[in-house]
């Protein structure tokens, strides 16, 4: 058993990331766009390439079997990470975006009719807007919006009002805003939606790396995320769906793997989860994602990173995983917010200071008479990586009345020194542009 109160050893964690071992080390404050990858993940992927590389679920030779075992073990790890009831509720996709599209296409095409409605919040990423807009164009459904309050939280009154129409079939919301860092009241949204007979999809692209997500406790119907924001590889994402829902949904893409039988007249689809995994899946990437989860649960704290399944299970259940990551990231964000607020003309987006709302993962801001692209360009030239733009949230930026913002985001490996260097560089960049 590990000591629960042991703080994260950030220096030790940083040494596990090839990207952060560069000299001089980059100041990487863009983990919300893509987190860096630890050795453990890269090694697991390389090991699969070296000794298990073979296609899954086909072929009788030993490597094919090893590869299949590795792929399915990754699925079990994801199942445990999310506390899903069954491993066949975990569908591997290429990304969070593809997972949301899968639901919009497969579930939406079969279960939605003209005049049905879906609800989104003003916080949504384009990935959780455009697939529904496409459905709107094809099926004649309505897309209804939850506006945000002064703290950036989606308005429950709007949800209640929409649900009262009796037309809402699904509420699709982010579990953590990739701009404001706020988490909507998920428990309440899910309870209200279910009461009104609507399903809930959670876009967990950001939340997955910053907070525990227990799909059974939350009782969400679908949940989607990408591996690359969770210290895993690109090209892999996950759709969680309740088994009874996934069973009623037709296949999304057609091809190998997703069929039981093909004949000259047609085909019958395979069982879950293969039904939704057409073609050769991203196998090395699935192995990498599984390893990233194990690493986050235990490996990042161990000198010898070889956690057994048993210990990671136990830690997940006791919640130790987040007990040290969350305080670390909270103190970073508080430090960032306080330091940024000292800069005159800098406006932090999101909760007002007296709201007592916790934010996670990122803090975004605007700086009077400094364009975010100039700011991040100047910082980038000093190896300080921040993101500028609308962060794929154009409706949110329009709602906030700004064309673009600058975002600082943190991860397990982020340090206060990096934030200090960034704040100092912002002050200097502003001086350079404006004096």
């Amino acid at each position, binding site marked *: 058993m590990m000591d629960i109160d042991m703080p994260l050893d950030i220096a030790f964690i940083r040494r596990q990331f090839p990207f952060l071992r560069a000299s001089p080390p980059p100041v990487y404050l863009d983990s919300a766009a893509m987190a860096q990858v630890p050795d453990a993940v890269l090694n697991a992927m390389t090991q699969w390439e070296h000794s298990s590389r073979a296609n899954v679920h086909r072929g009788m030779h030993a490597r094919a079997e090893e590869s299949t075992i590795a792929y399915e073990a990754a699925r079990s790890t994801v199942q445990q990470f999310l506390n899903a009831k069954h491993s066949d509720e975990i569908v591997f996709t290429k990304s969070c975006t593809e997972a949301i599209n899968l639901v919009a296409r497969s579930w939406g095409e079969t279960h939605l009719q003209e005049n049905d409605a879906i609800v989104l919040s003003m916080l949504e990423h384009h990935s959780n807007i455009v697939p529904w807009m496409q459905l709107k164009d094809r099926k004649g459904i309505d897309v209804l919006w939850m506006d945000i309050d002064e703290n950036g939280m989606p308005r429950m009154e709007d949800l209640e009002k929409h649900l009262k129409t009796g037309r809402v079939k699904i509420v699709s919301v982010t579990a953590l805003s990739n701009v404001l860092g706020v988490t909507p009241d998920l428990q309440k949204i899910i309870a209200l939606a279910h009461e009104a007979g609507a399903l809930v999809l959670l876009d967990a692209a950001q939340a997955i790396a910053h907070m525990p997500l227990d799909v059974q406790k939350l009782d969400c119907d679908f949940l989607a995320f990408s591996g690359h924001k969770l210290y895993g590889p690109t090209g892999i994402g996950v759709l969680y769906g309740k088994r009874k829902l996934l069973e009623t949904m037709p296949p999304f893409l057609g091809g190998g793997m997703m069929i039981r039988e093909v004949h000259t007249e047609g085909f019958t689809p395979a069982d879950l989860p293969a039904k939704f995994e057409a073609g050769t899946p991203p196998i090395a990437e699935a192995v990498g994602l599984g390893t990233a989860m194990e690493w986050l649960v235990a490996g990042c704290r161990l000198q010898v990173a070889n956690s057994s399944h048993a210990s990671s299970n136990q830690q997940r259940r006791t919640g130790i995983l987040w007990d040290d990551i969350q305080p670390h990231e909270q103190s970073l964000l508080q430090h960032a917010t306080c330091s940024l607020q000292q800069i005159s003309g800098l406006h932090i987006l999101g909760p007002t200071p007296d709201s007592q709302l916790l934010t996670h993962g990122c803090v975004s801001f605007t700086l009077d008479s400094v*364009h*975010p*692209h*100039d700011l991040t*360009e*100047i910082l980038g*030239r000093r190896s300080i990586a921040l993101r*500028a*733009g*609308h962060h794929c949230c*154009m409706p949110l*930026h329009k709602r906030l009345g*700004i*064309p*673009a913002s600058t975002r600082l985001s943190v991860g397990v490996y982020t340090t206060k020194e990096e934030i200090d260097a960034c704040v100092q560089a912002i002050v200097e960049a502003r001086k*350079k*542009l*404006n004096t």
Partner: protein
Amino acid sequence: MDLYAENILDHYRHPRHKKPATRHPPFDSVHSRQPETIVHTEANLSCGDEISISLNIKDDRITEIFWDGTGCAISQAAMSMLSEELHGKTMTEIEALTPQNIYDSLGVPIGPRRAKCALLGLLTLKNTLRTHKGVDHVSWARLIALHNH
């Protein structure tokens, strides 16, 4: 080389020929105030940069130019520099301007990341005149593909 060279920052801080009145509601592309004044706005949606140009044209030559806009230092400085070159120019001369002309006056290396920032003013200018002539607007892809002869 520093992208934010002194001449760029100078134009950014003290833009030439910039007049707030030029601004029109965004994306309202054509708006004639007087017979010879033509106003046109273009925007870079991905970063929120926006430039409006107002031209007075007499005997096919530009007699007066004002512009207004918001955006990054590169887009604003490039427009300011461009505005200094326009007096007396004809439509044919404007049509002959290429991205390289803009990069040359900026005098710093402009990578693919910032090309659209640097060229927003040129795009707006060309399309202001094309609006005046009633011909199709030039697209981003076409503009970026234009080379010096």
